[in-house]
């Protein structure tokens, strides 16, 4: 039977449930779903979050006061905590005594496991203020016997030349290096977003000028300049001052990538309808930029920022390693690695290179995380 398809009643359509879900999901949800598909990125994010937790809990996780030094226990290899005594669960460290080898003139340490010193969790250690406010002296691991100082017995990752506990120092170094990275990224973000927005939004001559500045900044090698500027810090500057100054000069180079991303987004968005609508409804330009355009690419900015962090960390670590950045007694990954600068040190006391591991891990994780964020934020990049 012939009939005009338009007038006829049809058999019911099969609605696609999945498609409907996708079409009503908010942008944030879409981004989260896409991000979740990258297993590696998710793992990386967890790792980064764990690291930043140590920033908060550095004191609690540390065993010894990082500044406590005793020459006689210098350059001790890592002393692991044994969890069992035979078959009994009994966490302890073995006593260590040091002697100087008369042939090599090196200090040699002897572990004497007949003498066991018990350790336990939530023990007492040096005093500190948790989160800067609550005074306490509890640490994650310490000695069972309250009269014993962990500084004299616990050397989870060995000691440095001055006999300071590497494990505790590493925790504090992590805190400082990660924070410098974070502040540096924030500064670069501000610079990058402002300049990128102006560049992309106004176009024309301003855009040209800013682009030239970006190009010139990118074609000049950064480390020699960092070195040059950092070397001029007066030696009487406080650690805090140096800290901020380093953050600032590193940011002066790192903003370019962020500016480029922001500018690119603005350029494509400038002609979109919702921008015109906002402007027509009377909003002034600044309002249009910040309230209407920016929110649509928070995710891109976050991705770019995450990818900028590793550069900051590498820059600070390198500078401090060379002696031009953070200076003792400040502890950062770079200053910790300073001790591992020459071949003799590395050959004889390789545990001094352990601070390299968190650096590598954090940078790898940040790269994966940033990649995942970037892929999730931009649906058209695949």
């Amino acid at each position, binding site marked *: 039977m012939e009939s005009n398809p338009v007038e006829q009643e049809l*058999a019911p359509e099969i609605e*696609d449930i999945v498609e409907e879900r996708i079409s009503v999901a908010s942008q944030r949800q879409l981004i989260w779903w896409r991000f979740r598909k990258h297993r590696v990125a998710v793992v990386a994010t967890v790792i980064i979050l764990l690291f930043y937790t140590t920033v908060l809990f550095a004191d609690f996780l540390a065993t010894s006061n990082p500044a406590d030094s005793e020459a006689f226990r210098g350059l001790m290899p890592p002393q692991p905590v044994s969890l069992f005594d035979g078959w009994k669960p009994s966490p302890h460290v073995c006593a260590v005594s040091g002697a100087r080898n008369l042939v090599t003139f090196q200090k040699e340490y002897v572990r004497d496991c007949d003498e066991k010193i018990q350790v336990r969790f939530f023990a007492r250690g040096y005093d500190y203020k948790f989160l800067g406010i609550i005074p306490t002296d509890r640490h994650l691991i310490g000695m069972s016997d309250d009269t014993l100082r962990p500084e004299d017995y616990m050397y989870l990752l060995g000691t440095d030349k001055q006999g300071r506990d590497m494990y505790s120092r590493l925790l504090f170094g992590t805190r400082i290096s990660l924070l410098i990275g974070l502040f540096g990224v924030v500064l670069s973000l501000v610079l990058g977003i402002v300049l990128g927005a102006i560049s992309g939004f106004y176009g024309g001559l301003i855009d040209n000028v800013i682009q030239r500045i970006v190009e010139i900044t990118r074609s000049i090698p950064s480390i020699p300049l960092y070195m040059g500027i950092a070397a001029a810090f007066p030696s009487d500057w406080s650690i805090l001052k140096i800290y901020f100054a380093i953050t600032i000069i590193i940011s002066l180079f790192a903003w370019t990538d962020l500016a480029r991303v922001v500018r690119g987004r603005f350029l494509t968005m400038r002609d979109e309808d919702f921008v015109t609508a906002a402007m027509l409804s009377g909003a002034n330009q600044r309002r249009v930029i910040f309230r209407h355009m920016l929110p649509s690419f928070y995710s891109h900015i976050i991705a770019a920022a995450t990818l900028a962090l590793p550069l900051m960390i590498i820059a600070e670590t390198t500078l401090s390693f060379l002696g031009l950045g953070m200076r003792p007694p400040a502890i950062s990954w770079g200053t910790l690695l300073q001790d591992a600068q020459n071949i003799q040190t590395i050959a004889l006391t390789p545990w001094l290179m352990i601070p390299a591991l968190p650096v590598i891990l954090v940078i790898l994780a940040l790269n994966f995380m940033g990649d995942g964020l970037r892929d999730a934020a931009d649906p058209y990049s695949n």
Partner: protein
Amino acid sequence: MNMQPTESETVITEQETGTLPLLAVEDLQTYFFTDEGTVKAVDGASFEVLPGQTLGIVGESGCGKSITAKSILQIIDSPGQIVGGQVKLSLDGTESRNLLDMEPNGIEIRAIRGGEISMIFQEPMTSFSPVHTFGNQIVEAIRLHSSLDADEAHELAVDWMRRVGIPSPEQRMSEYAYQFSGGQRQRAMIAMALCTEPRILIADEPTTALDVTTQAQILDILQSLQKQNEMSILFITHDLGVIAEVADVVAVMYLGKVVEIGPVETIFASPKHPYTKALLSSMPTIDAAPRERMPSITGAIPHPQNRPSGCSFHPRCPSYMSDICGLKEPELMSVGTDQQASCFLYGRD
């Protein structure tokens, strides 16, 4: 655009028994195995191409016509794979070779590609390499399929550029794609495809990206070259007007299957498959009454991963029969002289 086929179109020649068609596609199946699931892009396409004939494949976007064409030459990108069917090429009418049996990217099929069967594409701008000259790319095609040396190939290429109507061809040989206009690029692509004198030209939407005037010119060139070289054309398009203009035989595809096939006049005059009918009646005509609502096919093309059961058109079909259409899949069956359709209206078997 002329909707009705012109009288001078050749009628399908009677096949003497025993002569194999130039190209016979039988039950071609090409699936795409993606993370989200398997997409059956082509799921049982069958048709034949005779020497000197133009077969038009028509259908909406996504019905699998492009994939069918690419499957013939085995140039499907992963995750696509040809999973079934046969593509038999017979150059002399007596023996045939199954193209799908040939090793993918092997010497045999590479000789066919660009040699016996050439292909032109929809977007001439992106179908040429932007950093190589035209001359380079055309000469490459010539030398791949002949034993001419560089100079001879160059001469031949210039000759072909002239034949497709590109002015100052000698100069054009050393120019790049972005220096040509859209129509000229498409002509150059035709030249590149035909300079090896193939028996079959597969044209995948060659005029879709062009404006109407250029479109007409290109179609003219194609048809005149076809006559000169006695070539068959497999013309793929979604534009029924173009089909009426160029095709001798029409195959209508829907969701990966050929649902109707027959001589062009017959299809246009008396379409049998409900989809064909709907397609034809949804074309805007100059004869329609003013302010009459534009007819369209109700519903939307289902997502290829959600194929309807039974006949894939049944959810949108005005002649839907609830006792069979959603349950069994119809096969192509004869519905007239040289005409076949796959619909239970014409026989339940």
